[in-house]
């Protein structure tokens, strides 16, 4: 089977041996009502309410949404409008912590008897994909079509990030436990734990753990970017092709992030919803790169300072990895459920764009075989028919084309802009 191609990046996994450090409780947290893909929640708390750890503070009737919980105990000191890195505006609840970290009485292990009660519990946990996209987990685990394989995405293919790797090194039992739990309750015969080849320790450990279990395969992905992209990981580990307009479940597959699986396992035991997460703090402006576990709502700037970052030097702050992460305008923005990395960069690329020399590097590197240079041309003249024919809608914005372009053209960006020209059906 021909594997999809990709890009050889410098791994820069500087923090792979940095054990997770618990961040001291911040004085104040700002919890946005939208930390997931889907409809934002409405706050359930009012100004001056006291909240406890694990208390639900935001929810929404829409099915494509997940509730929001507080990770701290304290008092609500503000409810504001908040613009996230995507530009979406939602409410955010500011809580001043009291330091007691009293656990809410809402927090108790869920009663799970069958698939329905499990899916309901997953929703109540506030779980969404921890790999970065934040797709609501209860929707992912409840597809309309029968599933024969669940792929646990442990590719972590972006440079710098080691948050999932630390989960694998520190909580391997939760991961295997979670895989078995999901497999049993959803009646999925087979699980594939897909790990990129640059994590040999994790591959070795899990291969040993799953030695006597033939329902769990440990699969080594080639070490090239973007192995963690859904279509790529499905194709490379099962040979199946998710066609245009299809979901992974249409080919009998669910792809779920490895840290999400471990979280779900802990949730069904303890009932503590998703209120903390691990993120990698790194980048060339960061003095001491670390893996940090903190409550959602912690301001990024406090993490950077904790990691000995001289804020004077910082030119760019990226929430997420260097390839697909988002640069943020304000260092006071908070850690959200999907923050897998926080990078502070000293320098940024401000060279001018020059003419396309038609070298074809963008075409050669696109994992899906798109032609970014042609898409850019069609985008400039707003040729919608041509854009459709070039299949721009399939672009997943992995950024490989922009990365390799010798003329410094922002091809991934023009792909996204081109998508907006195509009318949705």
């Amino acid at each position, binding site marked *: 089977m021909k594997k999809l191609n990709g890009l050889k990046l410098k791994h820069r996994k500087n923090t792979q041996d940095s054990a997770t450090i618990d961040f001291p409780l911040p004085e104040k947290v700002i919890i946005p009502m939208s930390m997931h893909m889907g409809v934002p929640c409405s706050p359930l708390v009012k100004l001056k309410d006291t909240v406890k750890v694990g208390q639900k503070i935001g929810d929404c009737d829409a099915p494509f949404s997940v509730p929001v919980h507080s990770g701290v105990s304290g008092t609500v000191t503000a409810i504001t409008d908040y613009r996230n890195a995507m530009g979406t505006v939602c409410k955010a609840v500011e809580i001043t912590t009291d330091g007691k970290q009293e656990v809410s009485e809402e927090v108790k292990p869920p009663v799970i008897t069958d698939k329905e009660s499990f899916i309901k519990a997953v929703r109540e946990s506030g779980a969404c994909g921890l790999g970065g996209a934040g797709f609501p987990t209860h929707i992912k685990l409840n597809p309309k079509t029968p599933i024969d394989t669940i792929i646990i995405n442990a590719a972590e293919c972006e440079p710098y990030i080691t948050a999932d790797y630390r989960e694998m090194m520190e909580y391997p039992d939760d991961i295997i436990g979670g895989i078995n739990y999901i497999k049993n309750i959803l009646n999925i015969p087979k699980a594939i734990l897909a790990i990129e080849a640059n994590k040999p320790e994790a591959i070795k450990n899990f291969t040993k753990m799953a030695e006597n279990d033939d329902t769990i395969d440990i699969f080594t992905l080639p070490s090239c970017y973007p192995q963690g992209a859904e279509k790529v990981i499905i194709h490379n580990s099962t040979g199946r092709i998710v066609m245009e307009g299809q979901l992974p479940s249409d080919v009998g597959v669910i792809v779920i992030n490895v840290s999400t699986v471990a979280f779900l396992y802990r949730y069904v035991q303890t009932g503590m919803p998703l209120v903390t997460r691990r993120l990698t703090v790194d980048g060339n402006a960061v003095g001491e790169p670390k893996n940090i576990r903190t409550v959602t709502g912690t301001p990024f700037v406090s993490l950077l300072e904790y990691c000995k970052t001289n804020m*004077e030097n910082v030119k760019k702050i990226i929430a997420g990895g260097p*390839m697909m992460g988002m640069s943020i305008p304000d260092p006071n923005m908070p850690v959200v459920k999907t923050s897998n990395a926080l990078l502070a960069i000293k320098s940024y690329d401000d060279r001018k764009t020059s003419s396309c020399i038609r070298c074809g590097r963008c075409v050669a590197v696109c994992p899906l075989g798109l032609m970014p240079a042609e898409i850019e041309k069609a985008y400039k003249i707003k040729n919608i028919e041509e854009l459709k*024919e070039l299949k721009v809608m*399939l672009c997943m914005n992995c950024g490989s084309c922009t*990365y390799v372009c010798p003329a*410094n053209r922002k091809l991934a960006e023009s792909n996204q802009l081109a998508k907006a020209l195509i009318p949705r059906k």
Partner: protein
Amino acid sequence: MNKLVVSPSPHDENYVKTSVIMLNVIIALVPAFVMSAYYFGWRSIMLTAVCIVSCVAFEFICRKLMKRDQTIGDLSAVVTGLILAMNLPVTLPPWIAIIGSFVAIVITKQLFGGIGQNFANPAITARIVLMVSFPSAMTNWVYPFWYQNPTDAVSGATPLVVNSTEQYSYLDLFIGKCGGCLGETCAAALLAGGIYLMIKKIINPAAPVAFIGTLALLSAVSGGDPLYQILSGGVFLGAFFMATDYATTPISTKGKVVFGIGCGIITFVIRSFGSYPEGVSFSILLMNILTPYIEQLTRNKVFGAKEAVKNEK
């Protein structure tokens, strides 16, 4: 605290820039240049310098007159000048070489919008224009080391026009001990440059392999001498340095194969049946013109894309 820069992803970049690519092409041409100086003497160095300087000067003036960003820094004009020089006979008067640079940079490249926008290879077009305009000056060949013995060094025939009895040996052709343009005689130097570019992933082997392979195959089938055919004339120079030009050849590997095969066929036909002894330049130029069509027909199949459903009206 600085004002933070906000820009779309990716935030990482690699360092292979246009100028780095061009620099690598220049490095790859160094062996051919050194061999040309060795075989044809100081005049070859002078002619190369004239071509490079005039190409860069024309590029500079053009960009200035057209009020566009200056692009001499990307080194593409240096590459054009160098390749053009490699395509000229050593006896050529410098003023003709300057006309060649004008055709290459001004007419073929800048009038179409500059780097990446030209549909025909600048150096090839210049060579053909000069060949048609100054046929005797452009075919005034000399033997290697003519400078040691200038009195009787006239009209060294190229390997493609000699009688079968005076044929050069394969070794002479490989090391370039034969008549011809500055940079095209030494197959070994060109091969070394070509392999360097392939290792550096600057060029894709598809087009040169298809070009040389097709020519060898056709001459073998027609009862010719395939090795002699591919080692003589401008085949290696054309295949490695001009049939791999980014702007004027197809982007996809499939397209590059088609391009290479086309070059091979046309070169063979001109050499066997045409009135010109050499067909490499014409073949590349003709295939340059076909490139947009090849491009259309050899588009990549997008992973997971549904075949377009044709609207039946």
